[in-house]
């Protein structure tokens, strides 16, 4: 694959406004709930009020007899299990035999209007045998009376156990000069995207099913619909309209999507399934509540000798991405550092609560907090500056980690240097007055999971098709899913860059499985890297055809030509060339409209041991953030004043989008750190609304100084890597460590609420520890 640019970039690297921006600011962008089909029915779901119960019988006769009701569905009609990972198909569209959390779908109705649907749902009678509920993952580690799933390991509720050991951790700890242990505790947080979950489905007399859905992974939805409904994929058409945010919460195929499609099949009518905000909270799939236990050993030179990590991860009712989560909580803890000995035991446990799943910086966030706090402690206890400790342990470029991750580009040392300098670290650390402080946190994340979930890496993870006709407009087809992060804009910009044309010539088409070639969607921060390479390859193929047209017009060999702005001309002589359209029209003479294809296949990576592919990626991103905080020691409230965010995403392709991802990531990271919490009493979620689930307000945002220092990645498109998830990770430990610098208290339970700050201050006072004179 080509690496660096062959000529200076014209468009890429600048601030490129989002191509759909004018539609979004005028309300003209079309989301799923804005689409209407004639004769639509309303779909509604009946959810379980029991956390765990055996279904004895469901009486739907009265519901079915309600005038205006077209269909009533229960689980036995579509019992085929599904799930995002083929190895853990443990969900069904509607509950079969048991319900497993408050919110599990028991029945569904399609009716002429909302009122009729609600009236019908109210008439459904469910007879259950209540079972013991298991809200606490610790309980589920041992044998339980009634395992939530039959597939729990050995009669427990453990869904997945990962045990890995590289090197000799016990020997490393035995010879360590200094060790530290940190136990972190993290509640669940959720995506809180603004557009609720919504699906529209229509079955037509030609035997086809069309599904519009707010999804970030249209291809996996396509597969799951086919599996559960028993309809071949080629008779199902999945359309992804604009999506109002995802952050991982729209990456699983979700049961309401399948139920909506099933109701459309049952009724032969279009059916709309719009979930209300409470339903969205109960659907969850957010970040896993987690307890982790991190031990780190250092040698006398301050080099990391070993990690020893345990994690207990609260999975909720289903597997979702959980097997991946379980691996990630270990393997993503090592980078950006060299860790020669590594031991990890991670267990993800089913509980009778809404399922956890993938959320932005999936699997890399909670464990990172504990690791970075542990390193902060080690730095303090060994009298080394936190920056120096990190720099001493930085992973070198072009190296292999102990678990055989291939590291190519890394600008981590540059991140450290620039964050240290710009933040004024050396004049602030431990020198600001009591109540004020600075902290360092670092991060590491995958730039695209190397393994496609559903097929072998021999098949492309991303394919891009281009078509251009006499009008000179370039249609771009790909199933990549823009959910607001700007992938449509990047796709258009790469094509425009390679062809030398204005951006307005390039029209990215709506994702439609009938015409979009497969790209496996927006998750694992894969789109820029993988789609970007596919787009570049497709555009280069198209450029070859158009340059051939120019060569024929000019009567010169194509090798002597280059692409300028809307022109093709002899190298170095823009005046002597031909306009883009003339060259295009000449090139079209034999075939008519031109087409081109590009594809990205991930390289062969990773070891051969069990689980070796988890966490392998064709590139990784690196970060070093400094946070400065101001704590009100009377109330425990604190303000994050500023974050210096040094991030290595390789070459920056759209500066506007990268900045937007960094700023949004910091906001989301601060939310988890400062107050967001899925509050449970036993198995019941108690705050399923945006009023009670507190996303930070504009006033809580710090000033953010973004420092993009990445060198070109050898395999990324034009040298780029991801920027969608990695920028979140360092936010949390940077603030956590800054709070320590401010008041001398370690906070190991998230979120760090004002009352926890006060408790920390009280504890410090009781212990008689003084901090910065206070």
């Amino acid at each position, binding site marked *: 694959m080509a690496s660096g640019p062959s000529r200076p970039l014209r468009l890429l690297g600048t601030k490129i406004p*989002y191509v759909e921006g004018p539609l979004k600011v*005028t309300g003209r962008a079309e989301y799923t709930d804005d689409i209407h089909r004639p004769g639509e029915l309303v779909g509604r779901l009946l959810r379980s009020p029991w956390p765990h119960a055996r279904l004895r019988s469901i009486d739907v006769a009265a519901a079915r007899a309600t005038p205006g009701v077209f269909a009533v569905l229960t689980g036995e009609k579509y019992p085929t299990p599904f799930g995002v990972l083929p190895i853990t198909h443990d969900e069904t569209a509607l509950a079969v035999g048991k319900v497993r959390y408050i919110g599990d779908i028991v029945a569904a109705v399609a009716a002429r209007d909302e009122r009729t649907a609600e009236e019908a749902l109210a008439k459904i009678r469910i007879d259950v045998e209540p079972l013991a509920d298991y809200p606490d993952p610790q309980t589920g580690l041992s044998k339980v009376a009634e395992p939530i799933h039959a597939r729990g390991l050995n009669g427990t509720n453990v869904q997945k156990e990962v045990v890995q050991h590289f090197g000799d951790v016990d020997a490393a700890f035995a010879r360590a000069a200094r060790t530290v242990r940190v136990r972190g505790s993290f509640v669940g947080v959720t995506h809180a995207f*603004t557009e609720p979950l919504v699906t529209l489905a229509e079955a037509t007399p030609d035997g086809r099913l069309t599904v519009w859905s707010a999804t970030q992974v249209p291809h996996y939805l396509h597969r799951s619909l086919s599996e559960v409904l028993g309809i071949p994929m080629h008779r199902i058409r999945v359309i992804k309209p*604009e999506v*109002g945010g995802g952050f991982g919460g729209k990456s699983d195929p979700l049961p309401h999507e399948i139920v909506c499609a099933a109701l459309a099949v049952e009724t032969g009518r279009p059916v709309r399934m719009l979930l209300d905000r409470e339903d969205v909270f109960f659907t969850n799939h957010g970040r896993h509540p987690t307890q982790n236990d991190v031990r780190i050993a250092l040698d006398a030179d301050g080099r990391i000798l070993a990690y020893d990590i345990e994690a207990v991860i609260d999975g909720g009712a289903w597997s979702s991405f959980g097997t991946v989560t379980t691996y990630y909580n270990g393997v993503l803890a090592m980078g950006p550092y060299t860790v020669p000995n590594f031991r990890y035991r991670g267990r993800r446990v089913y509980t009778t609560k809404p399922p956890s799943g993938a959320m932005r910086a999936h699997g890399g966030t909670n464990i990172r907090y504990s690791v970075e706090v542990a390193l902060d402690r080690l730095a303090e206890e060994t009298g080394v500056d936190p920056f120096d400790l990190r720099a001493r342990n930085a992973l070198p470029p072009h190296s292999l980690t102990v678990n055989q991750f291939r590291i190519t580009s890394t600008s981590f040392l540059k991140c450290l240097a620039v964050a240290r300098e710009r933040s004024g670290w050396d004049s602030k650390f431990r020198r600001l007055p009591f109540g004020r402080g600075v902290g360092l946190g670092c991060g590491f994340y995958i730039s695209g999971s190397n393994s496609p979930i559903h097929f072998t890496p021999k098949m492309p993870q991303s394919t891009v098709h281009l078509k251009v006709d006499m009008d000179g407009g370039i249609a771009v087809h790909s199933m990549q899913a823009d959910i607001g992060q700007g992938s449509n804009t990047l796709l258009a910009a790469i094509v425009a860059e390679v062809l030398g044309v204005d951006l307005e010539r390039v029209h990215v088409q709506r994702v439609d499985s009938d015409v979009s070639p497969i790209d496996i969607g927006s998750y694992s921060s894969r789109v820029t890297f993988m789609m970007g390479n596919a787009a570049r390859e497709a555009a280069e193929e198209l450029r070859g055809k158009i340059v051939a047209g120019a060569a024929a017009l000019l009567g010169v060999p194509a090798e002597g030509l280059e692409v300028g702005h809307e022109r093709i001309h002899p190298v170095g002589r823009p005046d002597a060339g031909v306009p883009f359209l003339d060259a295009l029209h000449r090139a079209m003479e034999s075939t008519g409209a031109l087409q081109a294809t590009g594809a990205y296949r991930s390289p062969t990576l990773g070891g051969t041991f069990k689980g070796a592919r988890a966490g392998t990626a064709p590139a990784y991103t690196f970060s070093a953030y400094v946070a400065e905080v101001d704590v009100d020691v009377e109330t425990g409230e604190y303000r994050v004043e500023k974050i210096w965010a040094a991030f290595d995403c390789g070459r920056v392709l759209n500066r506007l989008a990268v900045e937007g991802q960094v700023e949004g990531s910091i906001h*989301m990271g601060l939310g988890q750190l400062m107050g967001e919490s899925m509050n449970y009493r036993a198995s019941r979620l108690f705050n399923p609304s945006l009023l009670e689930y507190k996303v930070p307000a504009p*006033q809580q945002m710090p000033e*953010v100084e973004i420092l993009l220092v990445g060198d070109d990645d050898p395999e990324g498109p034009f040298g780029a890597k991801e920027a969608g998830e990695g920028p979140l990770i360092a936010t949390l430990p940077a603030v956590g460590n800054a709070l320590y610098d401010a008041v001398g208290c370690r906070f190991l339970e998230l979120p760090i609420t004002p009352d926890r700050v006060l408790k920390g201050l009280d504890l410090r006072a009781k212990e008689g520890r003084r901090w910065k004179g206070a």
Partner: protein
Amino acid sequence: MSAEARVKFLLNGHPQEVPCEDARILLDLLRDDLHLTGTKRGCDLGTCGCCTVLVDGRPTLSCLTLARLTEGRSVTTIEGLTPPQGLSAVQRAFVDLGATQCGFCTPGFVVTATALLEENPRPTRAEIERAISGNLCRCTGYIKIVDAIAAASRSSG
């Protein structure tokens, strides 16, 4: 529904008279009956601001407003703030400065920002933050939204 259950109001500058039950919510009337889908439904509880419209020039959560209460008043939606060609100054600034990401909250922000600048043409950042604090954006961290509103305030006269 009785035959006389109707509401008369000015919608985006044009007189409207449409059937309207007493309990009809303004958001439902706009989206479902009048097909003005630029006003977004995010929570139905007044917690996200995606459904913000102007009633007599004041930002109003249409999901918490009975449609009948707009009788004789002026309602402006995002469609009414959009010039026939091109974009308003606020819309232009949102596009140019990347204040949209997923875009679902954007109409609500544009409506709120337009009302703010009408009332206070030169707001400080703190005043902008206060004005938009009823609008939830999960994508941007608000920084580029505040930047865009500040830029629009400078560009308009």
